[in-house]
């Protein structure tokens, strides 16, 4: 299991992939990439982790995808499955390992049925494929939303330092551009308020942000909203954005294209607010309200706050 990475630091998603890994066998966690020490510290507290393998990077072995793939291919003989979260880090690294080992990975695994059988969505979630693994080590990336996180425990797994091969030709990391976001992360939020091109007439995402803040939730967007310049692309939910699984998803001014639905199908409750009664999002929503979002969203915020006070 490769420890997950978020902007060069530890990510809470690791515990979800560990849960997937324990369905297959004993789990060693590879803490690699930048701030690998922090990843190791967090990882050794995750239930189901047998040992943490720590990669201590240096100038001689910088934390690049190319170096890590090279390292993992050297360790691969000891393992029957090599797993990572399907995030920007794992989805970049695992297929490169696949190129080195000449094994095609199985990406976006959303269920493990047996040690050699898993499922994954295809066609933007319109179908599910059941895959039988033939070559080992099998290379898998798992959808974090499909696996509940393994618990954090008091016992500490041992940390073993990995001996490193010589570095290979790599891209040079020049820094991150993180979007200033005070709100919860889409991948972990319990509540998400997402906006679509219906916000375009207001030239702003203010109505979405206001409701998200009233609910303590995250802000998400459709590709339509991103293309219209209303939201940054890292807020995009869907087939080619983030897959989310909040308890509550509220979609404002979103039509509900297949590619967007692909990202929200695992949500607990889906709410649609759209003035077009024929918008496809209404058809998959648990609660659908045919209304103008600029009128309904602020009133919904108030009604929810009033209920909270009344409790």
């Amino acid at each position, binding site marked *: 299991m490769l420890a997950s990475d978020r902007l060069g630091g530890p990510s809470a998603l690791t515990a979800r992939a560990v849960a997937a890994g324990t369905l297959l066998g004993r789990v060693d966690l590879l803490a690699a990439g930048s701030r690998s020490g922090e990843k190791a510290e967090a990882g050794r507290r995750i239930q189901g982790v047998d040992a943490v393998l720590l990669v201590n990077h240096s100038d001689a072995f910088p934390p690049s995808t190319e170096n890590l793939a090279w390292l993992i291919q050297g360790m691969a003989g000891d393992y029957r499955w090599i797993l990572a979260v399907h995030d*920007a880090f794992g989805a970049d690294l695992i297929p*490169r390992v*696949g*190129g080195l080992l000449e094994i095609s*990975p199985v990406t976006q695994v959303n269920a493990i049925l047996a040690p050699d059988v898993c499922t994954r969505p295809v066609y933007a979630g319109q179908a599910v494929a059941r*895959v*039988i*693994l033939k*070559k080992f080590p099998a290379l898998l990336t798992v959808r974090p939303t499909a696996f509940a996180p393994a618990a954090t425990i008091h016992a500490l797994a041992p940390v073993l330092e990995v001996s490193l091969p010589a570095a290979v030709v790599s891209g040079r990391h020049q820094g991150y*551009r993180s979007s200033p976001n005070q709100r919860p992360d889409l991948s972990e939020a319990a509540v998400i308020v997402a906006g679509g091109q219906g916000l375009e007439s207001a030239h702003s995402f203010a109505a979405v942000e206001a409701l998200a803040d009233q609910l303590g939730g995250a802000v998400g967007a459709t590709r339509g909203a991103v293309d219209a310049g209303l939201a940054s692309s890292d807020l995009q939910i869907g087939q080619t954005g983030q897959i989310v699984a909040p308890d509550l998803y509220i979609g404002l001014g979103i039509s509900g294209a297949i590619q967007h639905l692909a990202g929200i199908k695992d949500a607990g409750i889906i709410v649609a607010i759209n003035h077009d009664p024929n918008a496809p999002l209404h058809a998959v929503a648990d609660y659908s309200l045919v209304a103008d979002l600029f009128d309904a969203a602020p009133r919904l915020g108030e009604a929810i706050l009033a209920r909270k006070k009344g409790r």
Partner: protein
Amino acid sequence: MKVLVALKEVGDPAVAVHVAAGDESVQREGVGGVINPFDEIALEAAIGLKEQGLVAEVVAVSVGPLVWEGSLRTALAMGADRAILLRTDSVLEPLQVAKALAACAIREAVGLILLGRQGVDHDWGVTGPMTAGILGWPQATCVSRFGLVRGYGEVVREVDGGGQLLRLPLPAVVSCDLGLNTPRYASLPNIMKARSKPLEIRVLPQSADPSWEILYYGPPVQRSSGRRVASVEELAEQLDQAGVLP
């Protein structure tokens, strides 16, 4: 410098796919249709580099059945200089495609391979980094900005929570994301001109030894359809009762 752009055909993403339990025809669904949207972006990026005078030749390559010739003609009409179809009638797993692309890149002595970040049919998202691994070239996936500066690729990758800035020594493999550009349409005169551009067809040798097999396709788990609420107040009440309010 030459650039290789990898193009695949997929079923039109605007058309819904309906799958019954055990519907193996899904496998063929992606064969024939339109150029994968991300691959058009990759092609646009390559043509843009040529227009800036940074690239000498843009070669489009597909690994697929004869009917994909039509998409390669479209690529030529958009501005690719040459096209290669590595012909096969089998449905390939990504390793076979990556091996074929890697061999083609060596044969053509290209300095850069541009691909899509994922095929929107099977959503594997692996062919770019697998090709890079086979070649031992540096890689950047999900790229939303790309420039060639003094012989390096300067890229921004889309990552969770922001962007990663990378400098890539060439030759390299780059997979393209939606924000990179807006692909052009092929104009009618260019469609006519594309007819006389070179399109080479070579037969890809068969290979076996699969990494996995797809046993079965089925419909996704259906969500039970919900209910209309008449007012904001009713919605707030329902959400409160469902226990999802903070």
